[in-house]
């Protein structure tokens, strides 16, 4: 009778029954504990330390850090760079994904590969490339100098490097989404008399808006937080070409921990807000995001 004593509670005297997909509780808890420990050591602890260090001498010194003109300049510059590079990549991302998803043309796969390039190239290399092209000894350096245009060690270089690094975010988000949606609704709008631009505004854009916002969000987070490429082209001129991440590094190297971590709090806060919005979008508009986005 022991075979029949198999009960759903698993406490019968007979064979312990459990669905094949359920591991033993020992395995389950070990796995969960490992994951939690890993997250705690590598994610929560560093994040917590950023806040702890920033407020280690109280709220006063924390706020003082933001009174520093160099820190303010860094914040302004970061906002300026993001304000230029995010819209630039928004336009580029829309154009690229539109052409890739709705048309077939020679060199399409090359374009798709090129869009991914910034993901595979080290940001430092990206920065160096810009120095070689636009720097004083670079390809266009003498010509630019003769015309009084400075790109490297100035704001334009930082913007260029940031655009390069954040290049794929919007496009990679929109391409699968647009490919999935096809062009049938656009064609319907055209037969109903809508112009190309009106079709874009009234049909295409509403269909991709959440995916677009998602891409912009990720693009913005990266644009504000980029270190490597910007570091190479910036020249680290205080109050002029230091973005927040560069300023954090300088302050930290000067053992000014409170100021360094105060600025770091700003970046961490940005990351948390981005994460929050991203989660909200995924939860609220999962169906309007492409399958790729949901896997992030």
């Amino acid at each position, binding site marked *: 009778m022991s075979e029949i004593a198999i009960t759903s509670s698993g406490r019968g005297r007979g064979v312990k029954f459990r669905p094949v997909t359920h591991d033993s509780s020992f395995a389950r808890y070990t796995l969960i504990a490992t994951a939690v420990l890993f997250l705690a050591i590598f994610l929560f602890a560093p994040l917590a330390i950023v806040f702890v260090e920033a407020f280690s001498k109280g709220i006063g010194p924390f706020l003082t850090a933001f009174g520093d003109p160099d820190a303010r300049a860094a914040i302004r510059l970061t906002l300026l760079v993001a304000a230029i590079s995010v819209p630039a990549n928004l336009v580029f991302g829309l154009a690229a994904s539109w052409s890739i998803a709705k048309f077939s043309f020679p060199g399409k796969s090359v374009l798709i590969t090129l869009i991914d390039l910034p993901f595979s190239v080290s940001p430092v290399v990206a920065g160096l490339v810009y120095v070689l092209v636009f720097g004083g000894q670079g390809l266009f350096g003498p010509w630019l100098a003769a015309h009084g245009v400075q790109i490297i060690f100035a704001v334009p270089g930082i913007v260029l490097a940031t655009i390069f690094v954040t290049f794929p975010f919007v496009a990679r988000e929109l391409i699968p989404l647009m490919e999935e949606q096809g062009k*049938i609704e656009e*064609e*319907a*709008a055209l*037969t*109903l*008399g*809508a112009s190309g631009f*009106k079709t874009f505004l009234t049909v295409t854009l509403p269909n991709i808006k959440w995916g677009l916002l998602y891409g912009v969000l990720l693009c913005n987070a990266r644009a504000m937080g980029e270190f490597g490429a910007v570091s190479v082209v910036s020249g680290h001129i205080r109050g002029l070409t230091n973005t927040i991440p560069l300023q954090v590094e300088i302050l930290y190297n000067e053992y000014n921990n409170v100021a360094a971590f105060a600025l770091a709090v700003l970046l961490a806060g940005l990351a948390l807000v981005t994460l929050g919005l991203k989660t909200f979008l995924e939860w609220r508009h999962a169906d309007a995001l492409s399958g790729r986005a949901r896997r992030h």
Partner: protein
Amino acid sequence: MLTRSPDALAATEGSKRGTSIRIEGVEQDFGAFPALRDVSLDIQPGELVALLGPSGSGKTTLLRVIAGLNSPDRGRILFDGENATNLPVQDRHVGMVFQNYALFKHMTVADNIAYGLRVRPRRTRPSRAAIKARVTELLQFVQLDGLGGRFPAQLSGGQRQRVALARALAIEPRVLLLDEPFGALDARVRKDLRRWLRDIHKQTGLTTVFVTHDQDEAMELADRVVVLNEGRIEQIGTPEELYDRPASPFVISFVGEAVALPVTISDGHVTFGGRELHIDTHGLRSGPARVFFRPADIAVAAEGSGDLEGRVESLRRTPAGVRATIAIDGYDQTLEIDSPLDRSASLGGRVPLSLAKARIFPADENGDYFNAGDGI
């Protein structure tokens, strides 16, 4: 099942009625693959025409060429005698119903229907109130009163189909184009909508072209059917003409069931497996050919007569007689033949068979069949 208010009907009659469409030598290549080859077709004002063919036959491509969504590589499209070949899709005023309806999912049903009016330039755009009134009329016309606030995802397939039609009619189109209008619907809804489409056509008087792969649908609905195969028009004709005088082996096989027997023509005599078939060869040249006939056109003949002979594989009693499954000598498939009781047939026995009607198509040097010859 569906009734319409006369007012709503009047609303759709504001459109120009019955535009003629002329297609002249249209060709379109997709890369190396020719999608349309020298297609010419005249569609009369107010006609209901079906483009019928298997998938890949170019029927949807032809519809898109008429709509202006594809521009042909060669040839011309004329609307009412005016060259419309280079007329942008926005200016063609075609009412297009797409295969999966292509409704704007982020808009309500009412907004979908109003779309074509709202995107007009300010000069020609009706007032808000006029648009609203028109939407209400059209909703009534397609039997969706009160559903204007719904989103497409909240509708059934048949309802979406009707929204797509209302949206297309809202712009007072010159012609109505439908791509597989019933393709995505289940059988019962299809039947209702077929009748309904016929009514709509009758009441709006619009020149209507629809694409289908379903020959029953084409035959039941259309005034004339255009049979397409591999980008070419095989035949244009009324359903009767297609059934009774199919112009090619493709048409006879695609439109209804057909049996094809490989035969030989020599000096005007047609032979199949050593037997002579009494088919008029009309002076067709000697050589291999194929005889086509419909299963209904073959019957058990009286003893001692008949064109063919077969063996009875099975027998089944029916109210009027017997249904025999017969294997024709020299033909690899069996046929079901109904015959009255007085014809003697026994299981395993041999029976003479006679052909009431058949068509013969000689083979060209590639072994393909072309050129119709009239049958018995």
